[in-house]
């Protein structure tokens, strides 16, 4: 950019000052602007990450100094702790149920609203509302009551309360997430509106039906947004906590069926005071989320289509 060439007549300074000092001033200014972030990134992100890695090799209960145990925590996690694997399995199941369902619903509703002339704004806001309210403890409590014995779902489907049945409880948690499809839907809708109408016209002229248009125009044009939603929702789903906590009264029950990873991490670290063990769990989570994101990015090359090379 042309940030440094200031027209000579307006800069009433010596030639060197006009060329060097604004640049240096900008460098200095940039660091002033960045200072809160730099401090936060160092003290609240990088340093804690290092500390958490260190702690994961120790036994630490907050009160006595950390005791180095090497890989003990990891070995215990992977080979001696069935509840750990239970929480891994629960979380993976939850992610695999909740994320695709949520995104499919979000896309379907966005497609339905796309061409709408009247009422679009209203629907958009109304479908979005659960995304904000649903993250609250209030709605999680509603969920527990509605899916409990004698709750609405029991009345309607006669399946008994889902919340009390090991095979079903996790599905109730997942449904709460699916219910919050409004946030990805709004992003899909914005993406759909940026697809030029000419593309559809050209496709129609070439004899493409609705389905063909969807597959050959909508999906490729929307793929960056689809990718964005997929990455974001997957990362968030791995960290689900509040609904599982509310539905199981913080215990992960029944029979550990809603013991999601973060709930078990909370239990180990803050209830049982095994901070070292919880740190090891946190690092595995970090690693898994990093790996899943990397895999998503890797596969995205074959299906995400960018119109301009400027995009990330």
């Amino acid at each position, binding site marked *: 950019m042309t940030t440094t060439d200031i027209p000579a007549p307006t800069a009433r300074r010596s030639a060197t000052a006009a060329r060097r000092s604004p640049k240096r001033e900008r460098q200095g200014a940039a660091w002033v602007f960045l200072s809160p972030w730099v401090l936060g990134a160092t003290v609240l992100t990088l340093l804690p990450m290092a500390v958490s890695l260190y702690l994961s090799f120790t036994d630490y209960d907050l009160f006595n100094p950390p005791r180095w145990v090497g890989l003990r925590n990891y070995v215990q996690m992977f080979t001696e702790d069935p509840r750990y694997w239970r929480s891994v399995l629960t979380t993976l199941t939850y992610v695999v149920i909740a994320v695709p369902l949520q995104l499919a619903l979000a896309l379907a509703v966005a497609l339905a609203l796309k061409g709408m002339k009247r009422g679009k704004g209203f629907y958009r806001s109304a479908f979005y509302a659960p995304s904000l309210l649903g993250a609250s403890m209030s709605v999680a409590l509603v969920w527990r009551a509605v899916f409990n014995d004698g709750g609405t779902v029991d009345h309607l489907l006669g399946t008994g309360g889902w919340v009390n049945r090991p095979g079903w409880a996790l599905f109730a948690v997942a449904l709460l997430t699916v219910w919050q499809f409004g946030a990805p839907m709004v992003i899909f809708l914005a993406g759909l509106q940026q697809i030029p109408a000419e593309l559809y016209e050209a496709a129609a002229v070439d004899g493409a039906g609705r389905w063909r248009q969807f597959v050959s125009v909508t999906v490729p044009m929307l793929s960056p947004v689809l990718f964005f939603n997929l990455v974001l929702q997957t990362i968030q789903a791995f960290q689900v906590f509040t609904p599982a906590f509310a539905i199981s009264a913080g215990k992960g029950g029944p029979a550990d069926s809603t013991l999601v990873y973060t709930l078990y991490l909370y239990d180990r670290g803050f209830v049982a005071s095994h901070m070292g063990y919880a*740190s090891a769990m946190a690092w595995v989570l970090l690693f898994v989320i990093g790996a899943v994101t990397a895999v998503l990015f890797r596969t995205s090359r074959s299906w995400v289509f960018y119109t301009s090379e400027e995009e990330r």
Partner: protein
Amino acid sequence: MTTTAIPRRRVARGRTVLHVCCLAALLVMLYPLAWLLATSLKPADEVIASLNLLPGHLEWSNYTTALDGVNGVSVWRLLGNSLLIAGGAVLGNVLSCSLAAYAFARLRFRMCRPLFAFMIATIMLPHHAVLIPQYIIFNKLGLVNTYWPLILPKFLATEAFFVFLIVQFMRGLPRELEEAARIDGCGPFRSFFSIVLPLTRPALITTAIFTFIWTWNDFFTQLIYLFDPDKFTVTLALRSFVDASSQSSFGPMFAMSVIALLPIVLFFLAFQRFLVEGMANSGLKG
């Protein structure tokens, strides 16, 4: 679209069907919220007795019980605590995130690209990777069971999502304005405060509203940092009801849930345009 090929009547009918479907979906989706409102007004014996959404008679005493609060702490106190934390978080995020965003979006400096990449990466960083050491740090500083751990990080731009959101927005602003200002002798600080910041208002409002709602709803952080009932937020106070699940306390419990949800509903009604558009912009280029 291909509407020209299809007779008008069919289009109109298709549209009606679409509206009917959307409204039906909406009814199902809003059911839990209607249930919440209805239950908060039901007497204890009606809660599980019937599927009927409407209460036989309105039990307003649920709300008076809820106002008395939990563990001897009144709801006003709980709401005040929540408000203090959410307000502090809003101030912190708007201030620190806009400062960082301006540097990333507009100022050239060494390490700009790697630092920006790092900032983006922290959006994906699970909170749990830093949670325990952060807890230990605040514990060593004697700040556990105070509001500092909940507010202070926001003043240090730790919510990178908002930095990113504001960067995206600032990149869309015309550079000519600042260049003109610079020619007139504006330094980076003047041009930030007098030109860029006012123009960034929509992104700042989005940041403020989302911060408020997310902080208000946040449960995990409050759960680990706050112990004293009189320091509890409304969200945390609702937790007491998680443990005691007796049906008799249903009415007051959901009355309190409604009260806890009210600020979010009001924010949503007042700012839904900003919220929806802010969310839409986050997934696209600015």
